[in-house]
């Protein structure tokens, strides 16, 4: 049998324009998130009470946990990055877990992960500029031990979005290829056991890693 491996997403045409299947999957994930948030707003947020109960408890636990996780590492900048971190984690989790249902993962496409990497880059720099009160302070922060390290630190900061993009892309792509290989060799029973690792566990790890990387890069930018 022939395995199909390609760096390019499968074509998908909307009105004669090729947008790629992965873009469609990204839109589906966005639609799910928007519907879920509207439902949450109508059912939970409108009826919030001073003493939480039920679903409000879970929501407050999530948001509070994320704020505490961020502020433990970046201090006051947690106000800037926590919403972005939670958003990125939700998006990465939904698009990566789609692979479990036989759909192509949006993060299997380099376009999607580069966009995520640029989001991380902008977030980190906004947090850094805010913490240092403008460009002058940020440049001074980049020169911190001695001015010699300035170019090295600038290059390190500019490499960050590429690193985030390629690691996410490579992880999801390789997991997909390995699952295809396992399906090709043993089509029954065995893939289920491996899917638990390569689809569910891997999605969780990638979600955690994208949040952790954003926080770590921010903590480097504000020091």
């Amino acid at each position, binding site marked *: 049998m022939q395995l199909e*491996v390609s760096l390019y997403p499968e074509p998908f045409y909307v009105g004669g324009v090729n947008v790629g299947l992965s873009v469609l999957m990204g839109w589906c994930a966005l639609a799910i998130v928007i519907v879920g948030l509207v439902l949450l707003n109508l059912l939970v947020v409108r009826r919030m009470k001073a003493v939480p109960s039920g679903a409000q408890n879970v929501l407050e636990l999530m948001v509070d946990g994320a704020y505490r996780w961020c502020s433990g590492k970046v201090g006051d900048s947690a106000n800037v990055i926590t919403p972005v971190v939670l958003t990125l984690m939700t998006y990465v989790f939904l698009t990566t877990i789609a692979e479990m249902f036989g759909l192509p993962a949006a993060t299997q496409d380099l376009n999607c992960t580069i966009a995520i990497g640029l989001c991380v880059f902008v977030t980190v720099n906004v947090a850094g500029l805010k913490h240092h009160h403008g460009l002058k302070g940020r440049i001074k922060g980049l020169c911190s031990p001695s001015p010699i390290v300035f170019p090295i630190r600038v290059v390190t900061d500019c490499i960050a979005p590429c690193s985030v993009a390629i*690691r996410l892309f*490579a992880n999801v792509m390789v997991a997909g290829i390995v699952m295809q290989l396992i399906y090709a060799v043993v089509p029954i029973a065995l893939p289920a056991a491996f899917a638990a690792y390569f689809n569910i566990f891997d999605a969780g790890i990638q979600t955690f890693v994208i949040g952790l990387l954003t926080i770590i890069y921010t903590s480097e930018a504000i020091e």
Partner: protein
Amino acid sequence: MTLGLIAIGAGIAALCGAGAAIGMGNATGRATEAIARQPEAAGKINSSLMFGLIMMETCAVYALLVSILIVFILGAKVV
């Protein structure tokens, strides 16, 4: 002949995983020692260990991606 060379190249690319594995073993071992010595610093040690592990894992995944691309894309062109 060419196909065999492609296979050897893919194998060499995947060797990068050995280095990543050694690094991961070292880091985890040292972190365990550090936690045994200072259990109250476990949280901080764990988070920096996680960061290091992620970096090493990235390196290994790059190698795996390169070797898989060599096998499938280069191999498909030859065959």
